[in-house]
């Protein structure tokens, strides 16, 4: 089992997202995250899919995606230089004065930005790799057990210009 990334160019049409996600669910392929947005050409959408699978399943996934009429191009980002980021919001509630100092300290070290605050709750925004976000989440969960709310954006990726 290995972590993989795929970049997909698809027709920007009704039902295409359902077609792609249906392909994964119908064939029991698991997805870690899927993001989609329109490209510079408004008739084309671009998806970044992250998943964990063995080699054989991954080959099959790429072939199944490629043969879908709605899919224009499939690019395997797993082993090529890419820039990969995920947006993450974390709301931490019921903060004491001591907690707040701790949050600021953590934010500074981990590159998070405090974007909202109401006296007891803080909202952090982070843009890191999926992996780094996982580590941050683990840390915050430990530090502020049962007091955090997470919103993960899913990975977006683009090929590196300079390898």
């Amino acid at each position: 089992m290995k972590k993989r990334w795929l970049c997909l160019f698809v027709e920007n049409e009704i039902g295409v997202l359902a077609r792609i996600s249906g392909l994964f669910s119908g064939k029991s392929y698991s997805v870690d995250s899927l993001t989609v947005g329109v490209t510079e050409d408004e008739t084309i959408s671009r998806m970044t899919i992250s998943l964990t699978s063995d080699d054989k399943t991954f080959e099959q996934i790429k072939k199944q995606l490629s043969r879908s009429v709605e899919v224009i191009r499939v690019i395997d980002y797993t082993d090529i230089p890419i820039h990969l980021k995920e947006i993450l919001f974390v709301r931490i509630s019921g903060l004491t004065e001591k907690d707040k100092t701790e949050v600021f300290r953590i934010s500074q070290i981990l590159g998070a930005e405090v974007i909202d605050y109401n006296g007891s709750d803080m909202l952090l925004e982070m843009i890191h790799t999926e992996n780094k976000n996982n580590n941050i989440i683990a840390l915050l969960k430990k530090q502020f057990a049962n007091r955090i709310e997470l919103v993960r954006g899913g990975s977006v990726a683009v090929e590196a210009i300079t390898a």
Partner: protein
Amino acid sequence: MQITGAEIFVKALKEEKVDTLFAYPGGQVIDLFNALYGQHDINVVLPRHEQGLVHAADGYARSTGKIGVCLVTSGPGATNLVTGIATANYDSVPLVCFTGQVPTHLIGNDAFQEVDIVGITRSICKYAVTVHSRESLAETIRKAFYIAGTGKKGVVVVDLPKDIQREYGSEIYPKEIKIRGYKPNTSVHAGQINKALDTLNQSRKPVFLVGGGVNIAHAEKEMKLLAEKTGVPVVTTIMGKGAVPSSHELYVGNLGIHGSYAANSAVSNCDVLFSIGTRFNDRITGKISEFAKDATIIHIDIDAASISRNIAVDIPIVADAKKAVKILLEKAEPLQITKWKDEILKWKREYPIAVKGKGVTPQKIIEAVNAAFTDAIITTDVGQNQLWATQFLSLDENRKMLTSGGLGTMGYGLPAAIGAKLGNPDKDVVVISGDGGMQMNIQEMATAVTYELPIIILILNNGYLGNVRQWQEMFYERRYVGTCMRYRKSCPADCNLPTEECPKYIPDFVKIAEGYGAKGVRVTDEKDIVKAIKDAQQEKKVPTIIEFIIERECNVMPIVPPGNTLGDMIMESEV
């Protein structure tokens, strides 16, 4: 000039050279039907149920090589197509299915007879689309026909909202279209072909494994020549049967869990398995880790996704079967493999497929079909009738079989035969069905009668859903649950032995035939088999049902028990 959506629909059908339209009306397609009024070059056929309709279009497509076209209404009309869409798509049959839809402003409102048929069929067809504007209608239809009929052929669903059918717009039907995400493979990789031939030439024990792809690509002639030129024995899947004449000396038999001993042994012992147009379905491989264990596997398939999915392939070639076989034929050389061929012949001689039993047996019936019909299309239903047909039918370029191989859809045989006869009025069309499957689309008898189609329907009646009953007998201690077709409220729950008290005919198929205005005859004595078929052949206008009462617990043999390797077959039934 501006024309309505319904008018461009009819124009599109003509441009696509559609001569037969399988259509069932309803509220959301009434405008399309209206536009078809008086169109003499399109034969609008009205089956009696949408499932029968789509199987008929499927039988028409498989037997003519053209694209089958369906038109049904929204809601239940559309959902009734579902099984037939999956059936056709699974076997790579090209269909375009038009479904009516509620007007665009009502979509999503739970309107009367509204379903999301595109959502429902997305995973069982090649492409499904709702037309969202009158402007895109013509192009979408052109796209549908192009996608259905190219590459790995399949089913395209086009959902047509009623307001778009009525709206005026351009009369132009595009000739050429480009789909940027769809580029069917049209070339054959020369390097891979050479590699495959080098491997074949060095082989001592080679086998061709021929799947349905060869029949779909109409590469039968080339395949036969390739086998003859190389001298390599041919094994088929049930979908590939007939690609090389069954009587040919190089033909070994069908592979798989009900395959012949010789075919299964040939594949288990070969050193090169040269496979063309098969996806190595679980029905043919048996225990996957033991399948053709010592062989180098060459695989030609039009679908890249079929390669190395079920078994690991050494030399993959993504190509259309006909194109690939043609190139192979040019470059292939004769092989010196007499010893291997003799070994296979010996297996064939020593372990023939045979059904035991006295009286009216499936084997005798099907052999009578082989003797009586030289130019025919034979459709099967699904279950024992299908397996016996695939075992005993002798096929060649003039005697073809249509069967639901992938999905295994009961109720396929009769409607598929109707489609086949409509597409091939000069050929004899025979259905081999069971008493179970026949009742799944029996309403299509009316279609056969009204369109004056003299098809011959052979019902192998054992009063059971025989294939499941056979499994219950062999692997579930004869616990016959839900398989006896004569089981009544008053029967003991654990009954597994029919008695004199069992009702004789449920239903009485002879009376059913008569009720529809068809001919009906029952055969209970083996000496009447040939005559019954001969009499039916004389009918030029009406269909004939011949009900053969066969032994109740007749089994399909040999069989590879679930989980076993192909070499590990049960050859004979103990009962």
